[in-house]
Every structure is written in C-alpha cells, then in structure tokens.
C-alpha cells in the first residue's frame, strides 16, 4: 500500500508502453496542463525511474513523489 497522499489532477496510464513512451506521454500531458496541476504517470518500465527524474530536473516542474510500492511506478509531477 502506498502512503502517498496526493490527489492528481490528471493521470497518464503508460503501463505497457516501451521507452520512451512513458516519458513522452508525460511530456505530452504536461504540455497541455495548467500551472499547479499534478500529473500522475503510471509506468511499468524501469527506465522511467531515470528518464522521468532527469527530465523533471531539466524543467521547472517538480517531481513530488514516486510510488514504487508495486510492480509498477507512479510519478507525481507538479506542473510549473
């Protein structure tokens, strides 16, 4: 069970997508989101662990939390 208490504005379900699918799906959703929105990216691709955090570091967006409790990952990104 996750103890992350964040209510996302929008969820991108990229489970099953090969890289760079999950990150590109996230970027696409962030493009159309409003400042302050929280986008939750669901991915089961291990590469997302580095891809997402490195991309967020390049931007003004914030990676609020990463849920690694199950077989898949949940990335909570707050849009700048």
């Amino acid at each position, binding site marked *: 069970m996750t103890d992350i208490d964040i209510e996302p504005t929008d969820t991108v379900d990229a489970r*099953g*997508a*090969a*890289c*760079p*699918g999950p*990150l*590109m799906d996230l*970027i696409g959703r962030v*493009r159309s989101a409003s400042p302050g929105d929280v986008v939750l990216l669901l991915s089961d691709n291990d*590469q997302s662990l*580095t*891809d997402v955090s*490195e*991309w967020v570091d*390049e*931007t003004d967006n914030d990676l609020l939390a990463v849920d690694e409790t199950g077989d898949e990952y949940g990335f909570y990104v707050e849009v700048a």
Partner: protein
Amino acid sequence: MVRRVAILGGGTGGTVLANDLADRLAAEIDAGDVEVTLINDDPDHVYKPVWLYVPFGQREPADGRRPLRELVDSRVDLVVDRVTAIDTDGKELSLRDGPGPLAYDRLVVATGSTLAPAEVPGLAEGGHDYYSESGALALREELLSMTEGHLVLSVVGTPHMCPAAPLEFAFMADDWFRERGLREDVEITYTYPINRVHGNPHVSEWAEPIMAERGVGVETFFNAESVDPEAGTIASMEGTELDYDLLVGIPPHRGVDVVEEAGLGDRGWVDVDKRTLEADRADGVYAIGDAATTGVPKAGSVAHYQAGVVARRIASEVRDRPATATYDGKTLCFIETGMDSASFVEFDYENPPSPAPASEKLHWSKLAYNESYWLTARGLL
C-alpha cells in the same frame, strides 16, 4: 461466422495482409465463401522509405509509388474510396463515394500515420521535413542551395515513423556536405526530446559516439515548443533556443480522425493487445502497423510481420478454429550511417537491439531491399 474481411488502408500492412489472405484463403474466396476488401483513398501504394533519399538527390518520389491494382491479388476487392465512419457496433463502414455501408465480420485497421505540424506553432512555416513527398522535394531545394550556416535536425514529435530516420538523416547530411567540401561551413545540430539521441537506449548508446566523431552537435531534453520562422529560431519547453538557417523537423504524428471518432483509441491510434493485435475497445477489429499502439517502432517491417500474424489469425477464424498466431514484437531496420555505409538492427519484445558494425555491404543491402520491397508488397518476400 467470418465471411467478410475489410482492410482499411493500402500501405505496407494493408497490402501485405490483403495478398497474404488472398493466397491463404484462395479456395474459400474462389468458392464465394469469403470476401476480402481492401479500401484505400489513393489508387497508388506509397513506399515511404524512398523519401529519405529524395533530399539528397538520390531518388524521386515517383520511385515510391505504384498503382495498388498492380500489386494486389485479383482475388481482393480493391475499393478506392475514403472511409468516413467506422461503426464497430453495427460492424459496417461508411464510404465517402461508395453506394452504401460496407459490412464486415473482421476489420483490420491499417491506416498508418499522418503529420500534424500545426501542433507546434511556426513549425509548418519554418520547418522542412522528409516525411512527405512534398516535404522531401522542398527540402531538396533547400539543401542544394545551402553552402554554409546551421542545419538543425529536430525530432519534434514521438512516436514518429521510422525511428531510425532522424539519425540516418543526420549521418547522411554530415557525409553529403563533407563530400561536397562544405562540411566545415555547415554546422549540424540534432535535437531529441529525452535524455539521449534515440528512444531505445541500445541504439542511442551506439549512435552517440558516431555523432561525436562526426562533429554533429546534440541537444537532448529538447521538446520543441515553438518555431519563429522570421527570427530563424526554435525554442524548447525546457528553455533552450537554437538559431537555425535550415530547420529539418520531424513533425508530431497522429493516426486518422475516423479511428478516434470510432472510439478505438486516442490521437487516431488503435489500442490493441500487443500480441494478438486485437482492438481493446471493439470486437472483430484488429490493427496493424503504425495505427496499432504496440509500443514497437512505426516501421514497415513491423507492419509486414504484423500483417502475417493477423492473416493467420483471420484464416483460423474463417475456418472456425482457435486463432493462435501472435506477434512477438519482431522489428528489423537498416540504419544508414552515411552516403555509403549502414548498420542493421533486429529485435523483439524480449531481445533488445544490438546495432551491427556499419559497413558498405549493409548500405547496399538496404538499397537492394528497397528495390525488392515491391515483392514484399505483393506478398512474395
């Protein structure tokens, strides 16, 4: 009972599938028990890989066009028309010009990719591409007149057709300007949306040293947000701005509207089971090639292999047997590394790509396959 098979789209996937079914189900078709209909809105079949060579003056768009009628088995009903609606509940297609709805028992969506440059402000006006016949011809004129300045190759949208083609263009442009004695006066920069030069980490690891060796500049984490054609700049959402003299952009891609309107998936791509290729959101519907969201590249080889899988599945269904054929993610690509050398990759869902050492032999293999492609379209290779 499966009697009527409709294939929507006469590109690589649709054409290979139609010919495969015509061969596999010849007895049933001849007996009048099965009908295979291929619907395309262009009387020609277009082989897009030719376009990469057009800007460098090596091929003409006409080299990639042949009438579908010459490629498709006579057992296939070829309909040149545009589908305006897919009714997945009623299992019928509305046609723009045709007499009435076309009913199907099995539909295969093979509608491919379309370009959406308008999604990035200024890209259509300021950028050139080689992902269309008109784009490749216009780019040829620009390249021929370029003797100095900054060429920016920007991968703006992913997924896009042929993931290797941006790398190929950068390598070929480097070689082409070098051969013409202009390379010292032409700076080349390659941009990519994520933290490497290609979506696949194995291909990226192989390509990065080649780019460094050739002096091709790289900007990663570059998600193009806008192009200013007046100022000659392209800006990313990460805050980087590049000046360009010639911008070659890989535009955002979409599927076709009729797929999205039918509720089969977002942006015109069909959500499918990546092994059976059956649509997630409708019964009796398959999707192959670029139109199917399997996570593998939007490439001709993928459409070719997936067509074989769906042909076997549909043949089983026609004969009232369980469909057991599945797609394993097989993908095969040649990658040009210059004007006279190429590499090669083959991979699937389980096995990652490992690019072969570049050689002249692989370059000629790629060109030879491009010539023999017409045998693939006819279902012979």
